[in-house]
């Protein structure tokens, strides 16, 4: 029998700790498929961040470093500078990347570090129990914006892909969504591009993936996917914001 769908070689054969319905599983799979297809498993080094994906190193069958909160791009920089022949990727959530790690991600892009960043944007802090993230939508209720995010005191959602697209050193910046199969396939192509860029030495690539957190959003997985489509995509439009170095 010829299996048509199997576990990617670059994923370990373990049960993840992610909640049922969480899109981390899809994102992990897409990254692992990419690593397999590009034949880079033996020279890929991942960087896990702080958040739900802190244990990503348990699921990817590649060398991994676990970074301090927000510092994954700096850690990835250190790895890549020592091992330029390696393929280095950071996997970060929105609390990690867009809040505490804002300086590290912007300056990794400014330096044009030849790394790949997978950025999971689910508009909330997942692991700590559903607090407001910089990406939380206006009016969205979280445990620290219990009456809905109020732009008067809590500001507006930060748009990382748009922001990084203004950085000359960034080579590839794109936003995709994981809410349905067609978009998952597009995301896969973007992720593959982001790794291919690194193999070709083109520089900094970031792929933002709109994701769900049904647990902390308080929704069923199906409703969470629907909420993402109806609420996040209007705020965070999909597409490739930057392809190629320069203004």
């Amino acid at each position: 029998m010829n299996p048509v769908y199997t576990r990617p070689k670059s994923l370990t054969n373990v049960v993840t700790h992610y909640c049922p319905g969480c899109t981390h599983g899809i994102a992990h799979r897409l990254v692992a498929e990419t690593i397999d297809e590009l034949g880079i498993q033996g020279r890929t080094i991942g960087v896990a961040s702080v958040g739900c994906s802190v244990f990503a190193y348990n699921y990817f069958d590649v060398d991994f470093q676990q970074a301090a909160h927000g510092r994954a791009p700096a850690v990835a920089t250190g790895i890549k500078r020592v091992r330029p022949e390696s393929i280095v990727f950071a996997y970060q959530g929105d609390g990690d990347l867009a809040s505490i790690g804002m300086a590290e991600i912007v300056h990794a892009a400014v330096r044009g570090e030849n790394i790949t960043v997978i950025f999971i944007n689910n508009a909330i802090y997942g692991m700590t129990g559903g607090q407001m993230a910089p990406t939380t939508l206006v009016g969205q209720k979280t445990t620290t914006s219990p009456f809905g995010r109020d732009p008067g005191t809590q500001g507006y959602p930060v748009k990382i892909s748009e922001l990084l697209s203004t950085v000359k050193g960034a080579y590839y910046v794109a936003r995709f969504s994981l809410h349905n199969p067609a978009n998952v396939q597009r995301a896969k192509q973007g992720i593959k591009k982001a790794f291919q860029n690194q193999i070709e030495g083109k520089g900094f690539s970031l792929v933002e993936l709109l994701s769900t957190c049904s647990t902390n959003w308080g929704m069923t997985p199906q409703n969470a996917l629907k909420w993402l489509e109806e609420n996040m995509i209007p705020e965070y439009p999909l597409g490739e914001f930057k392809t190629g170095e320069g203004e």
Partner: protein
Amino acid sequence: MSESLLMKGNEALAEAAIRAGCRFYFGYPITPQNEISEYMARRLGEHGGVFVQAESEVSSINMVYGAAGAGGRVLISSSSPGISLMQEAISYIAGAELPCVIVNMSRGGPGLGGIQPSQSDYFQSTKGGGHGDYRLIVLAPATIQEGCDLMATAFDLADKYRNPVMILGDGMIGQMMEPVVFPEVLDAASLPHKPWATTGNEGRERNIISSIYLDPEELDAHNWRLEEKYRKVRENEVRYEILHGDDAEWFFVAYGTVARICTAVIQRLRKDGVKVGLIRPISLWPFPDEAFEKVVDRAKGFLTVEMSTGQMVEDVRLAVNGRKPVYFYGRTGGAVPTPRSVERRLRDMIDGKAPSQTDYFDRVGGAKK
């Protein structure tokens, strides 16, 4: 052995690091250590190395984490406020057991403080500046030559114990010039193999660099395993110098540049027949308790001199453990103890004119005559 060169302390330390096989440096500008970064920016490339100026000390030390985890021989340098910013990552580096060398050319604090020499980072360096049960190996050179020699030692200790090592200097040793002799550049092939590093898992099981242990039993075991390592460091890596240990009755206790001031005072006092000596800790952690054991029976008293309000003196008291009086004299914020003031404090101690040893005598520093 190569020729003797007249060099500024910061630049000499940078050259010593290159000669010791360091090929990766991450920094961020802060006075008074910028010459280390500048030297590395100019010279590291000649040796096939990499210099990166980060956007902050927070980022630079996390680059060190990544680079050390990838098997590089890595140096970082900063000064007091910058070292404070690095403490989180230093804790991670110790927790994940990564080797690196950190230079702190310390300056006066707290807060923004000043840019002049100080020794007020002793607590931060030796007692764990970051969170958790961990230790830094801390080495304190008194001369530029010693700093250069300790640089190679620091890298070797870092690799041997898979632990961060700090070279704790001050603005004085960073900024002054002295003749220095360097060893030849170390052959990169002689550096230790690091089978635990993240280099890509081709042909082997994957390597993971991490400091997270959510299971309490696992974290407890991890901490005690680290403690066992630190016990070995305590047993094997104590470094110190004793001057006139064979006949001295009164001892200065001082490290780094202040030890040199005390040495000058000792020469003068011994001409007058005063039997005075010096205990100079070179490893501040592990602290050289054994140096005190060697002299405590004969000693009549110890005078700890520091450029702080009294930090190392606490370890001196622990080592002496009440058996003999321990006095303190300190200046802070870039005010360097003068030989005259140091001599007067020692004579006061001998003459029984010093106030209680539990009170710092001369609270106003050297301002009083």
